[in-house]
């Protein structure tokens, strides 16, 4: 009897109200479902970030916990921004960032363009090309040092085979002039597939009817590429650049295994420099200020870039 009444009431009431009548309210469920995620992220991201900012204003050193901790204001920030080493590692990072993005966009887009010709077996070959980006950068980077060995390394042998140079005459990771390129080559090898996949999604999103219309108007293939393909794939390309940019600004594992920042400081990217300060010299306060500066930089650059990206999308 009661059940019958309840059902009739439920059927007569609008769904939103009916839902509230049964057990836990949606509001409670929403909170129940979202809170654990937010709490964990607060604990592992915001709380540490807050701590980092506070540490960055002190002279705290983790390896000397009994030393008095003094408030030094923005002294750490001043030191970092006037330190030529910081600028050297920012420069190394910029060099790495620019060249990896240029190479990966060019090769990745070209590959996507070719794969989009839909030759037989293209999806299997796409998967095989994607393999390097799925693997552990540290483990693979470590093995690349073997490929880069003078004389016995496969890479040197390959270059020697193509150019006729002596494979023992150069060391990709041992020479100041070559090491920055050694890390660019491995990063490009590893991450071009990522750019390729995003470009492929972009190319596949272009409706074929546009090309058909262009064909009817007798637009040349060349013109179709510049007026249809490229502009329509541009938002995707820019997205790929954003992701690679953020990732490579944070780059640590691959390069630390490949060169460890050397020779000298030629491949000492900001993350590696930061790791030295924080976990080898144990200048925790100083390193915290460094971390804040890096985070603000990547966040600022990404925000400006996203604005530009949205403009392109809206066009």
């Amino acid at each position, binding site marked *: 009897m009661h059940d019958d009444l309840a059902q009739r009431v439920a059927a007569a009431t609008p769904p939103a109200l009916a839902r509230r009548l049964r057990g836990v309210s949606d509001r409670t469920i929403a909170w129940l479902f979202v809170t654990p995620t937010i709490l964990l992220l607060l604990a592992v991201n915001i709380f540490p970030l807050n701590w980092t900012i506070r540490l960055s204003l002190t002279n705290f050193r983790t390896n000397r916990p009994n030393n008095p901790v003094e408030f030094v204001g923005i002294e750490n920030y001043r030191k970092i921004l006037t330190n030529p080493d910081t600028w050297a590692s920012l420069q190394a990072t910029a060099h790495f960032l620019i060249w990896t993005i240029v190479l990966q966009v060019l090769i990745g887009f070209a590959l996507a363009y070719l794969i989009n010709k839909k030759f037989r077996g293209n999806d299997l070959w796409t998967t095989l090309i994607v393999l390097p980006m799925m693997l*552990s950068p540290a483990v693979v980077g470590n093995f690349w040092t073997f490929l880069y060995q003078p004389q016995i390394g496969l890479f040197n042998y390959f270059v020697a085979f193509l150019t006729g140079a002596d494979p023992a005459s150069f060391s990709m990771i041992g020479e100041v002039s070559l090491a920055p390129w050694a890390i660019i080559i491995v990063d490009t090898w590893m991450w071009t597939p990522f750019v390729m996949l995003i470009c492929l999604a972009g190319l596949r999103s272009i409706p074929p009817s546009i090309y058909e219309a262009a064909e009817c108007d007798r637009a040349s293939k060349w013109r179709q590429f510049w007026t249809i393909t490229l502009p329509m794939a541009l938002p995707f390309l820019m997205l790929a650049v954003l992701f690679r940019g953020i990732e490579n600004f944070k780059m640590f594992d691959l390069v630390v295994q490949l060169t460890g920042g050397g020779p000298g400081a030629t491949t000492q990217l900001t993350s590696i420099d930061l790791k030295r300060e924080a976990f080898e010299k144990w200048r925790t306060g100083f390193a915290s200020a460094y971390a804040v500066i890096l985070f603000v930089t990547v966040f600022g650059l990404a925000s400006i870039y996203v604005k530009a990206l949205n403009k392109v999308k809206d066009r």
Partner: protein
Amino acid sequence: MSYSITEPSSRQKWIAGILVVGYALLTLLPLVWIIATGFKTPADAIAYPPKVVFTPSLEGYVNLFTSRSRVTPEDLAALGPPTTWYDAIVRQYDMVITGPSRYGERFMNSVIIGFGSTFLSVFLGTIAAYAFSRFKVPLKDDLLFFILSTRMMPPIAVAIPIFLMYRELGLSDTHLGMILLYTAVNLSLSVWLLKGFIDEIPIEYEEAALIDGYTRFQAFYKVVLPQAATGIASTAIFCLIFAWNEYAFAVLLTSGTAQTAPPFIPTIIGAGGKDWPAVAAGATLFLLPIMVFTILLRKHLLRGITFGAVRK
């Protein structure tokens, strides 16, 4: 058969195919080389010119899994003939096996931490994504952006306070600490990917279920979860791959008990310098599951990569 004027000609397809296959073969060469080096003897591994044809040997794998020590020829003779095939390999170098190496433990740590954090981040990610997709959550856009922005921080920058925090809480070098950390890192990806998948499920299904007398919870796990299964599975694979491959946190926050394989493999050394066949053997065992995974699940995986990226 309908004829499309935009379909590439068969000559174009051939040229495209040859170029792509050429690139693929070149790009796979380092991976093939890792696998091949694992089956070489140390002498073959560093031969010049690099050996393409060689007699396969399990020396790399034996060295990977054992720790050995050198003995004098007299002591070796006194031991009598080797009892096992791996003993025999080791004794060629005047060595005896003294016990297992740490590789097995490190590999198991990777499995425990990888699967543990994947389970947690997919579980938390699914329910959070459901709430974000279906309910009015206050400050929804801000929260979603906050979740995404956690991904922008360089791991080393986050590692400084986490290192101090974990030391205070006794979480340094523990499985639990690493699982929680990787879960937090993966959550941004998992919430965003899963929200995309759940958004695609028509809300009418649940409304119908609710009218039929299901509670919200029942509607969630009887209607929404089965519909989102593919999305959940591909999200899980991404989370697993990240946790499996992660190095920066692992190298800074673990040293013994909870150390995973990526920081361990590069430290494998042999008697005279780096034991490349053993390193390659360790790398092969560690990388191969992901390679097989990728090839078998390519349909979902490839879609997932761009899907996640394009949505953001």
